């Protein structure tokens, strides 16, 4: 499988009154064609900024891409002009946003909002675009699409609006679909439907998906691979199995331990991660997670950890993987699910030295 997207050492910051906020601090990952990558993290971890930077949607100023490359089909999106980006947005990359209540224009018919994309990129005449819009609404599971195209967003329920958003994002068969917390604002039952729909659509169209979420539970369902972000960096990345059954970073442990699951017994308490993410105007020295990390060592407060590779697909940035580090036990909830994965290297190897 060829790489569709490769992000290399991306750094994005925002100029605010309080100083420069370094929202994304050196993020690298790739995405294969037809694959789903989930980016997980707390609010403020930089996951949304990363995804919006790929689309070049961050307002500049105050935002600024300080460094890095975004290779999409071999072309660097960072270097594209606004005019060139207009040809990519909506056509090659579609995007779904968090809040379907506010992401649709309230005074424009839903059908028209879908047709806009088709008319812009496929250059279809109005009548053909409308046919296509109806077809798309049907594809995303909206009943009576012929009637619905002529309705306004306020006549749609939340779940239906998100379906309409998906129809907009899919309108010109994009190679990549970025879904920025697409289910967060929805009811739990609707969430499941939307997730099903996205999986279904991926099967039908073969589009690659970047799925941004703060909810690890959702991830297991939809993703092939997972990247965990904290304070503007990817702290761990691997296949779903690797993240769920063999996590290495204490932050991933914390996330897993705080996730409710049906098979956990009633008495087990959900763990929470104490504290809150650091202020990225002045990122802390060393590992940004150290102040909240119960396993922190002195070195965590001094130096940033190097990036270790645990298998062909599994990476983690934590000092705990250093040969000199003491052996620690992950939290009970995580320990219960640990499995031996046969693909692991005998020893984690350092692929990027600490700075």
């Amino acid at each position: 499988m060829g790489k569709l997207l490769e992000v290399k050492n991306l750094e994005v910051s925002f100029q605010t009154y309080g100083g420069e906020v370094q929202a994304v601090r050196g993020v690298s990952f790739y995405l294969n064609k037809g694959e789903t990558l989930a980016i997980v993290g707390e609010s403020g971890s930089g996951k949304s900024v990363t995804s919006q930077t790929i689309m070049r949607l961050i307002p500049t100023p105050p935002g600024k891409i300080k460094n890095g490359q975004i290779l999409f089909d071999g072309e660097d999106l960072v270097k594209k002009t606004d005019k060139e980006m207009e040809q990519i947005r909506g056509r090659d990359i579609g995007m779904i946003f968090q809040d379907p209540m506010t992401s649709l224009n309230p005074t424009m018919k839903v059908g028209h909002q879908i047709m806009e994309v088709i008319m812009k990129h496929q250059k279809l005449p109005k009548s053909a675009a409308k046919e296509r819009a109806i077809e798309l609404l049907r594809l995303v599971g909206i009943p009576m699409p012929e009637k619905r195209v002529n309705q306004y967003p306020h006549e749609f329920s939340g779940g239906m609006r998100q379906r309409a958003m998906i129809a907009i994002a899919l309108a010109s068969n994009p190679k990549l679909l970025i879904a920025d917390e697409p289910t967060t604002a929805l009811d739990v039952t609707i969430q499941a439907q939307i997730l099903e729909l996205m999986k279904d659509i991926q099967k039908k169209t073969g589009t690659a998906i970047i799925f941004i979420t703060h909810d690890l539970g959702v991830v297991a369902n939809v993703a092939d691979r997972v990247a965990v972000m904290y304070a503007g960096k990817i702290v761990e990345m691997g296949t779903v199995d690797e993240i769920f059954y063999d996590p290495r970073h204490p932050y991933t442990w914390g996330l897993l331990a705080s996730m409710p699951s049906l098979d956990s017994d009633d008495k087990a308490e959900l763990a929470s991660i104490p504290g809150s993410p650091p202020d990225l105007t002045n990122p802390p020295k060393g590992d940004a997670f150290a102040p909240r990390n119960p396993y922190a060592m002195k070195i965590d407060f001094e130096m940033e950890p190097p990036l270790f590779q645990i298998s062909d697909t599994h990476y983690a940035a934590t000092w705990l993987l250093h040969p000199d580090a003491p052996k620690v036990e992950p939290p009970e909830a995580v320990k219960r699910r640990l499995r031996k994965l046969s693909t692991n290297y005998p020893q984690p190897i350092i692929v990027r030295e600490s700075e």
Partner: protein
Amino acid sequence: MQQIPKEMFQPAVANVGEAEKLSKPSLSFWKDVSIRFRKNKLAMFGLILLILLVFMAIFGPYMTKYDYATNDLMNTNQPPSSKHWFGTDELGRDIFTRTWYGARISLFIGLAAALIDLVIGVLWGGIAGYRGGKTDEIMMRIADILYGVPYLLLVIILMVILGQGLGTMILAMTITGWVNMARIVRGQVLQLKNQEYVLAARTLGASTSRIMFKHLIPNAMGSILVTMTLTIPNAIFTEAFLSYLGLGVPQPLASWGTMASEGVQALQYYPWRLFFPATFICLTMFAFNVVGDGLRDALDPRLRK
């Protein structure tokens, strides 16, 4: 691989309390507002202008040896000079003295109208919003009907029939003027009264008036203040308008409105007679408007970080 001393791998659990410490000092609401207001150069300029205008309104009339009402028919329509700083009018009265005397009247009308609107509007809107139900229904229906009555037309009719004077003017302006304030206060109170801290206060047995004046009104203060800063220039404007229609304060009293409307008639020959009162009306309007805008921006929670 880098060489790292072994002792660096000793556990060092951070103090979570430390991490929880707020990185920025937290500011009280009004402190925050005042900082943001002071950053707004235009609004600060407006505020300084207002302070100067008020200062001159108080002390300006004493800076010359002239009286605002004494005619000097030997020295009519004099241009500005070292003797008469702003010149004289057609009865030889000193325009400098009259301008600052007029400032008192214009500002007084503005302030009085705003204060009366404030009292009636806050009570009416506060009670309607807080009581809700039928009371609210009836009170707001009345307000709606009054709101429909064209404001300036009613003011004109009242001035024509009740006769000119400072008191009638303020009465005419406030008779329906308070409705706007009442609507804003009601909206705020409706929004605030269901918030947890008000429910908490009620659960703790606080009396209605205590909740009104300790919890609801202070929190609605922002919008009330903004409305007030925009009522004052409106009243000054109305005064000028009425003066032009010949319904201003009676002679020999001076207000900026009457001076400007007399000045308009003499514009071709004695332009300074319009220039001074007109400039000060405009400056005052400008100052109140930018202060009001600045306040609104400073109070807007969406802009607060």
